[in-house]
């Protein structure tokens, strides 16, 4: 590993801080878009931040009979998400952590967060916690291999499983982005990111109806600062996954491996715009669809797994050496 320049460390720090501060704003923006499209006034873009501040000032409550698993899970989820935010090539390509953690590392970290929350849901011993955990793990078992396969398909042209190398290869050769493999991978990745972050049609993020909820059922016993941490972490997961998708398929504007201050500024503005546009499109799309029946969700995810598999085969077999 070569000596990392100061600027790439600065870019990574900015990336982590921007995800920390910006994630609740992204969620607030999505809620606002949805509210306006449904004819409501909405709570404003800053509402998630106000909720977080309120919950952080509340008293710490630990339900009777829960163990250290319940207490540590929010920290694990938030920690893994922040680590992912530091690894992903969002603002610049040369994250100092990049050589140590490739695509498999990122998916592993994502799954570690999911498993921590699932165990916490079981730890409470309540019916809802167990039910939510069971549903979440059913979905996660199909989501994680699909994310791996979809990004693997994109890694074939770049000849590397390193995310920065994939993004760099796509930025150098934009023609490969309209190949069948890349298009299939895009659809597959979009479906699994929606499933992973618990958005419609897989899970309804605004429901508290116990028959339908998945993510909310798992975290039902959390209150106060821990609930704030869980919600903050889920907003950050959504933000980093949207950012990953934006840079995999629209890699323009990202700063190079050894960025200048201006490059970092441009990279920051561009990735913020990309995430905001993607989040707005996602929220606008959600207005028109209803939640899928839980038993049909594996169908959707198996379909997206198949699309990812086709993407891999397409990018592996159709790849012609002539171009």
């Amino acid at each position, binding site marked *: 590993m070569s000596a990392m320049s100061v600027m790439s460390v600065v870019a990574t720090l900015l990336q982590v801080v921007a995800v920390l501060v910006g994630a609740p704003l992204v969620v607030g923006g999505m809620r606002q878009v949805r509210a306006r499209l449904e004819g409501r006034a909405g709570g404003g873009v800053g509402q998630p931040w106000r909720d977080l501040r309120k919950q952080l000032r509340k008293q710490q409550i630990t339900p009777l009979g829960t163990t250290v698993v319940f207490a540590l899970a929010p920290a694990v989820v938030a920690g893994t998400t922040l680590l992912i935010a530091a690894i992903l090539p969002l603002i610049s390509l040369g994250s100092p952590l990049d050589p140590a953690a490739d695509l498999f590392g990122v998916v592993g970290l994502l799954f570690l967060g999911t498993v921590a929350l699932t165990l916490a849901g079981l730890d409470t011993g309540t019916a809802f916690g167990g039910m939510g955990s069971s549903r979440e793990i059913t979905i996660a078992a199909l989501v994680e291999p699909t994310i791996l396969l979809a990004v693997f398909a994109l890694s074939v042209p770049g000849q590397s499983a390193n995310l920065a190398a994939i993004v760099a290869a796509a930025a150098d050769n934009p023609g490969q982005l*309209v*190949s*069948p*493999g890349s*298009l*299939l991978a895009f659809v597959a990745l979009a479906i699994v990111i929606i499933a992973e972050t618990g958005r419609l049609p897989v899970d309804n993020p605004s429901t508290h109806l116990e028959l339908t909820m998945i993510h909310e059922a798992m975290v039902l016993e959390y209150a106060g600062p821990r609930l704030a941490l869980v919600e903050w972490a889920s907003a950050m997961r959504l933000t980093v996954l949207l950012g990953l998708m934006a840079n995999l398929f629209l890699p323009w504007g990202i700063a190079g491996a050894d960025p200048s201050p201006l490059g970092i500024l441009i990279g920051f503005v561009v990735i913020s715009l990309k995430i905001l546009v993607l989040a707005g499109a996602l929220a606008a799309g959600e207005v028109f669809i209803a939640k899928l029946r839980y038993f049909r969700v*594996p*169908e959707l995810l*198996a*379909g997206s*797994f*198949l*699309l990812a*598999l*086709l993407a891999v*085969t*397409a990018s592996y*077999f*159709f790849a*012609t050496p*002539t*171009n």
Partner: protein
Amino acid sequence: MTQAIYNGVLNLAAGAFLLAAVLVVWRREVRAIVRLLAWQGLALAAIPLAEGIYQDDAALIAVGVVVLLLRAVALPLLLARAVGTEAHERRESTPLVNTTTSLLITAALTVLAYAVTRPVIALDPSPATRAVPAAFAVILIAVFVMVSRRQAVSQAVGFMMLDNGIAATAFLITSGVPLIVELGASLDVLFAVLVLGLLTGHMRATFGGTDLDQLRELRG
């Protein structure tokens, strides 16, 4: 037409061809399945058209136009007419294999197609033969659709997909069959669909539905 554009069009057509077959496995609305079949016909027609324009072969372009008219327009229209108007007719009742398993089986069939066609590609590696696995996968998927669906119309769609797959394999391996062969094969399919449409109409008039499993129970 340059080499790069030809490669791109061929890969895109083969990808769309396979994708349409996968979506037919996924969807249960009979009308949606018929619409997907039309899209698949369009992707199929793009293969001889691209090859014809790339090789400056007027006969191949003529074959492409015939395929386009027949498989993207005429056959789906005929099939759409055969779809019943009642609610239980428009939707495939629970397939014999559930959708999740069907999709995973489709994945396995696709991988199998890639494995089986490796020697064919090794004979003459070119952009066209490299897309043969996609066409071969459609043949396998079509057979699976034919055995796993209950409605007569969806089974007919499986049959058409089978024929599309065979035609695509022929176009990709031999870069164009003689016009007369293609015309003969297409005419066969057209008549098969006409007969299927007639049969479906008669079945509906006699039994009130085209669920083939129930018909077997009636007879036995």
